[in-house]
């Protein structure tokens, strides 16, 4: 099973993860759930519906995608950087038949799996807030996994460039937080003037948020295939880049 070697690294990570499941789950799910509670319940009551959705309904699918983004990206930054620098896990792995590509894929798929898991848990909890996802939500899961792959690969590039944990502050403040705020999770992008809107539509999280909202409520008013195809291309490109950057970092 030569081409599935990366899977062994995935299993190594899951073995470690199982030892402290609760702590990591709370870490990954805490923020989006609190947002849902505060924004959805707190200020949601005062707001009119958006495209026929209550504010809570509008917000929920987007927050699910943000939990994918954060779980995947945190795993391949803080988690991977610890393995890269302090624990020398990659160095040890490179003495086995696994290569750089296997390490990158193992880490990326692991990060994406954690992202998908937080998404599933959040989706399963939505009925508690009175939000009922449609059956189409099952089709959303692979899309969310793909988004997890993208953000895990992005995080891994940051890890390959990092010289300390502080470096990730840039990644979070300059990339993840703006994406969280401006990808149409909290307000509809329609409200932005068309000339500026195109920029926000092209942010990597935006199509995922849109798809998430569409599939969650079984609506198909937007060009979903285009969004999936575009995101997939971007994801593949980012994975390829992450292998290049990781090789630069690990091989002198």
């Amino acid at each position, binding site marked *: 099973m030569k081409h599935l070697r990366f899977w062994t690294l995935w299993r190594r990570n899951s073995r*470690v993860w199982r030892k402290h499941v609760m702590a990591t789950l709370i870490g990954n799910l805490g923020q989006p759930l609190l947002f849902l509670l505060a924004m959805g319940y707190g200020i949601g009551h005062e707001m009119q519906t958006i495209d026929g959705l209550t504010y809570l309904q509008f917000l929920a699918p987007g927050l699910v995608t943000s939990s994918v983004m954060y779980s995947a990206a945190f795993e391949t930054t803080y988690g991977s950087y610890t393995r890269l620098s302090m624990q*020398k896990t990659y160095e040890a792995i490179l003495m*086995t038949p696994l290569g750089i590509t296997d390490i990158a894929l193992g880490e990326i798929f692991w990060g994406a799996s954690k992202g998908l898991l937080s998404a599933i848990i959040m989706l399963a909890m939505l009925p508690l807030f009175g939000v009922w996802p449609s059956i189409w939500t099952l089709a959303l899961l692979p899309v969310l996994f793909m988004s997890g792959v993208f953000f895990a690969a992005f995080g891994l590039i940051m890890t390959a460039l990092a010289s300390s944990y502080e470096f990730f502050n840039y990644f979070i403040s300059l990339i993840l937080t703006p994406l969280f705020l401006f990808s149409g999770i909290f307000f509809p992008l329609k409200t932005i003037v068309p000339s500026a809107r195109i920029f926000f539509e092209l942010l990597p999280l935006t199509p995922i948020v849109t798809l998430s909202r569409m599939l969650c409520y079984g609506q198909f008013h937007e060009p979903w295939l285009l969004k999936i195809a575009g995101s997939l291309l971007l994801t593949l490109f980012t994975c390829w880049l992450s292998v290049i950057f990781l090789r630069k970092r690990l*091989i*002198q």
Partner: protein
Amino acid sequence: MTSTQTAPQTAGAVTPAAGDDIIVQVSGLCKFFGSRRAVDNVSFTIRQGECVGFLGPNGAGKTTTINMLLGLVEKSGGTMRIMHLDIPAQQQEAKCFIGVVPQTDSLDPDLTVEENLLTYASYFNITGRKARAKSAELLEFFALANRRQEIIEHLSGGQRRRLLLARALINEPKLLILDEPTVGLDPQARHLIWERLEILQQQGTTMLLTSHYLDEVEHLSSRVLILDHGKIVAQGVPQQLITELVGIDVFVIEGTTAELDALEKSFKQCEATTERVNDKLYAYTQEDCSRLESLLKKSRSWLRRPANLEDLFIQLTGRSLRES
């Protein structure tokens, strides 16, 4: 600990066909970091069943050479073959046959002792019952069986190093590469490791070994390569090299400058090379000079001992300290 224990099986025990016993072949290997020549035109061969000692002061280029064999450092020039596989083109295949004890501890602190071995085994596609049996065998051999469920943090330095060795043997390697496997350990821990290496060596495991404990290298290695400033300055059978390049006996004599000056002259007449370090005279004799011992009675202190690898090492690489 007894050394009568059975050693874990390694692939080294198999006798190869004649002429087909070359495990490592390196020729003209170079590595430049900017203008620094870390490894400069290094060539050597390691045959089946040999234990080759790789010596040199800090910064000589030992780790860089090993890392090039492992594909962790890109070569600047030269060719490398392991088991007739071209490195780095067939690196991944070659790694199936190699076991490595790295210079820096890279045990997985998130996993227990046994999980470390099982996880590492899985990278070699060794799983299930086979992996568990191999891991149990190795833990037994390295006296870690009662530490199976321990987390890595709770192990002593010696135990960690033994676990690194066990990990390196998990794939029954044809070539075992050890980069300073006993550095920083107390004598007891060191001896336990050397005892195990000796068993592996007797059993025919091919090894490439770097260490700063030269007496131990001398004891284990059938051949040594001495590296300095990235170049091989000598290679051969340790005892032969010592006799050829250093001599048979070493006299170390303390005394006043005048006394030592006089003694130096006498030793020169007896085919000896001499060296003065502070208020000491070192004389390396190429023939039996025991007749000179009567002259030494007046000296503050003196001793005579057989020349060893350390003398050779100092002779070739000098006494000055090296920055690593």
